[in-house]
């Protein structure tokens, strides 16, 4: 299980390959990457992500540990960036490695659902109209009830 909170960009392909290396008994790997999205086509200048150093790592490790307890997983990887990012940049990734795809897919979804509303990150969007903190969505909270 690896959790990394970092400012620099990461290489999704390289991370996925090194994560899966040496686990030939694992038949399935799922990766997910979150990307800075420009909802108003060309209006988003940048996004800044703030986090709570210390609590962030604790929260992500707790979520990853729980995923490992609930599904049959060979390994879990979570990388989440903070600081300034341009539209199109990758914000974060999760990867799950499992003997079979069902566990890998479900665990990745679980990780994403919890990470969205239980890991202390806050996004601020800078557009031509000013700067706004991204509001949380009720459906993000609702998503947790299915687990």
């Amino acid at each position, binding site marked *: 299980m690896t959790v990394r909170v970092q400012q620099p960009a990461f290489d999704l392909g390289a991370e996925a390959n090194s994560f899966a290396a040496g686990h030939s008994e694992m038949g399935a790997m799922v990766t997910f990457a979150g990307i800075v999205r420009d909802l108003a086509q060309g209006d988003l200048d940048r996004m800044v992500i703030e986090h709570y150093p210390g609590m962030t790592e604790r929260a992500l490790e707790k979520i990853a540990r729980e995923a490992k307890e609930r599904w049959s997983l060979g390994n879990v990887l979570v990388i989440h960036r903070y600081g300034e990012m341009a539209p199109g940049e990758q914000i*974060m990734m999760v990867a799950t490695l499992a003997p079979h795809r069902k566990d890998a897919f479900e665990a990745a979804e679980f990780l994403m659902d919890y990470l969205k509303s239980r890991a202390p990150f*806050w996004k601020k969007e800078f557009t031509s109209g000013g700067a706004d903190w991204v*509001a*949380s969505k009720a459906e993000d909270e609702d998503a947790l009830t299915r687990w």
Partner: protein
Amino acid sequence: MDVLYFAWVRERIGMPKETVETKAATVMELVEELRAREERYEAAFADLSALRVAVDQDLTEFDAPLKGAREVAFFPPMTGG
């Protein structure tokens, strides 16, 4: 006790962290003490349903006890991912 603020709570209060001398027994009592201080605290804590709290880096509720706590953090609902 260290009190930390994040995102728009930090912006409204105007600082990321401060050390507070308090005898507050619960998070809610601490909030009341802070609110009574200055307008900017009142503005930040006006709607508690829009806020989350962590005690010693664990998410908790506003009625949580503060006995032995070293660090309390206030912030809006998280938007990770």
